[in-house]
């Protein structure tokens, strides 16, 4: 459905171009939940912004149903069939208006099915009395859930969520992820997050982004089974969970910056890592590591 082909993108600052994304290839099929996982500053939000067409690509293309979204005719149609939920939920609501007002605006002031709205609110653990509260009276988590509920009301073809689970407590995260599972029947979902736990509970396929490049992708079960990139391995080892509370953290800093994107913090780096690394695929499980499978034995 959505295809990103060889995308290069970045920002202009004082007429100077900073490239952030390099050679991104990915796709989202119908009725599928796809996750983008990466640390802070890896380019998750930039990738999402390029996909929805907020910033231009310097090279490459984004295709929706086979048509480029960067042409004027297709873009209007594309933005009508997709809904994007921002990371910062406060800017999506009018602060001094009630939630009821905001939902009415969503339906162009026509009458709407109040019971359906309330059923979605119930699923996200929101009380119906919230409809009469102003956006400034809501707590951060509640406001976030209201914005997500409003996105779900429109039944979009493609739902793009930028860090949806930050600020949600565990019970509403669980309800929210269960709702996404239900949405999967009639639309596709693209989620970007830095939370391993939430993504691997729900996603069918996961792309792992680091330093503006995709370094690993595959089905969630394949990645859970074995990791081909040292970064992903570290990601799964250092998860703040109750069962991991006695694991010691070993920080790695190699002071090397050429070649592989992860060379500076990689415990398994070598001379060969300083060259250009190509992307390889084995059984639909792609990875960008020249030392695979050699580094797997280094640990023993």
């Amino acid at each position, binding site marked *: 459905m959505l295809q990103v082909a060889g995308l290069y993108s970045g920002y202009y600052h004082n007429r100077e171009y900073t490239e952030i994304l390099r050679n991104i290839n990915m796709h989202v099929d119908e009725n599928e939940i796809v996750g983008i996982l990466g640390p802070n500053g890896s380019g998750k939000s930039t990738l999402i912004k390029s996909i929805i067409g907020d910033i231009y690509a310097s090279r490459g293309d984004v295709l929706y149903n086979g048509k480029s979204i960067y042409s004027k005719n297709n873009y209007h149609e594309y933005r009508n069939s997709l809904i994007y939920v921002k990371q910062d939920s406060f800017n999506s609501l009018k602060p001094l208006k009630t939630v009821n007002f905001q939902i009415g605006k969503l339906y162009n002031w026509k009458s709407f099915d109040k019971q359906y709205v309330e059923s979605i609110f119930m699923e996200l653990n929101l009380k119906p009395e919230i409809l009469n509260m102003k956006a400034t009276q809501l707590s951060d*988590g509640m406001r976030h859930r209201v914005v997500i509920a409003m996105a779900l009301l429109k039944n979009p073809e493609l739902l793009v969520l930028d860090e949806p689970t930050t600020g949600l407590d*565990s019970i509403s995260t669980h309800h929210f*992820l269960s709702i996404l599972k239900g949405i999967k029947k009639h639309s596709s979902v693209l989620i970007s997050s*830095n939370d391993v*736990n*939430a993504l691997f509970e729900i996603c069918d396929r996961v792309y792992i982004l680091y330093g503006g490049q995709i370094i690993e992708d595959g089905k969630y079960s394949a990645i859970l089974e074995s990791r081909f990139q040292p970064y992903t391995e570290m*990601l799964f080892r250092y998860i703040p*969970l109750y069962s991991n509370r006695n694991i010691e953290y070993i920080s790695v800093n190699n002071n090397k910056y050429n070649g592989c994107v992860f060379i500076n913090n990689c415990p398994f780096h070598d001379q060969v890592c300083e060259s250009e690394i190509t992307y390889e695929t084995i059984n639909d499980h792609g990875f960008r590591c020249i030392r695979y499978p050699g580094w797997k034995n280094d640990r023993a």
Partner: protein
Amino acid sequence: MIELKGIKKQYKLKSSPLKYRDYYALDNISTIFRDNIISGITGSSGSGKTTLANIISGYDRDYSGEILYDGSREKDQNFIRYVFQDPYISMNPVKTVEWHISTAAEINHVKIEKASEKLEMAGMDYSAFRSRYVNSLSGGELQKLALAISLIPDPNFIVLDEAFSMMDSINLFAILTFLKELKKTVSLIYIDHDINRVSFVSDYIYIMNCGKIIEENYTEKIMEDPEDEYTGELIKYSPDYRKRI
């Protein structure tokens, strides 16, 4: 040690035109925060975690009840420090990291070498970051800087109100491991909505719901044998990559 005795906080909500009703954000909270351990507070959003943190640290004085800091009602200026949820509002975006550190050192009458040491402790290289402007730092780096600044006057207590919400999991793991070392010298109150992180770092957990502390106990006891039904639900639904919905 911080002792709370019957803390109440109420807001007035408009229920209908010309009619108001009381809404208790905090309802009769009495508890003790002990020295030299990490006390974790968790609960759903809107349960009053941030309100409680504001009252403990003295930012909010509009409450009824009594707080005793080491047995006395008055607290020393450097007794308690607060790290905010949003690091962007506590920093000046057009000043450098060096400016923030040196100003904090000057206010607290500490030498700048000692102050920059705290930044190194928090996991940021002072020599590499000193000339960086704050608006060019990422959210996680800003939050590390905020923690370092709060450490400069050597406080007895630090309140961390979702202070690490913008970090990715590896950075978070590193900084939470650092907090475990820090508790030998400072007592910490760690507030987070995610029970995974709270149980990872803290020794004693308080569970809040609707403005009340419904359960408090040592971490092992809470995680393995929760008494309250709500706590059980929080643990059952906590996100875990090994569970599949």
